[in-house]
């Protein structure tokens, strides 16, 4: 099987995604200027997650790939987050 769906992502779309990513970057910088305690890092990570979503979906073309692939990618991120959370069960309560 040679050509998959052969969806072509237009240049315009890619440029728009870049602008969104740059916007989020500057948003992160301004947010982390304030000290909101634990919230600051949470917000920074959420914005980073949001950026990742766009890199994955548009730059890495996941939005137009198979459902299988999208599920697998999600599962890997979930696995990582779960491992971190479980490790924190140890460190938070020592």
């Amino acid at each position, binding site marked *: 099987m040679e050509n998959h769906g052969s969806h072509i992502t237009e240049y315009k779309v890619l440029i728009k995604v870049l602008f969104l990513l740059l916007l989020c970057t500057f948003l992160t910088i301004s947010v982390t200027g304030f000290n909101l305690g634990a919230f600051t890092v949470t917000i920074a*990570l959420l914005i980073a997650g949001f950026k990742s979503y766009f890199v994955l979906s548009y730059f890495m073309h996941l939005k137009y790939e198979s459902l299988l692939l999208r599920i*697998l990618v999600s599962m890997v991120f979930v696995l990582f987050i779960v491992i971190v959370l479980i490790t*924190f069960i140890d460190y938070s309560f020592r």
Partner: protein
Amino acid sequence: MSEHNTHVEEHRDDEASKLGMWLFIFTELLLFGGLFLVYSIFRMQYPDNFHESSMELSVTIGVINTVVLLFSSMTIAMAITAIQKKNKKLTLRLISVTVLMALVFLINKYFEWGHKFEHGLYPGSDLMQFLERGHHLYFSLYFFMTGLHALHIIVGMILLIICFVKVNKGSITNDKFVFLENGALYWHLVDLIWIFLFPLLYLIS
């Protein structure tokens, strides 16, 4: 037997290639994941030290590097659009820009690290050993994570240069470009990792 070569071409499976690349990306995510796990534990334990140490980092260089990588992700994604539209020249130009951006990133990193080395701050140095605990851990993580990331930038550059050669030669074309796609995927991974590294190392309020 020469039959085998034609078999390989007839039974080319681009979806398999791509799936294989995604699976490899998963392993890289878990590899860096281990470091992010260590980071999160120590940041929780030494929040003030981490904050103080991160002030040593130049946010400006960090932002430039972030912008550079995001831009390069766009250009390599555009390269795929270009090859699909049979625009070989544009494809080559876009790959070149991507590689150039990677070089800019590495040069910035060279100056960043160089500056620290000059001040006696490097893994194993006396200055490092005598830092307060949280500071020491922060800088160990800084060098380890950015170092491993830089290594992946170099690997990515090599991959992209190979893509350039193949496009130039004509072995990557508008109906045979999975190699370029996979090279681009690897490049986006490098960008993805930095998206998380940047706020965690440079933007600790």
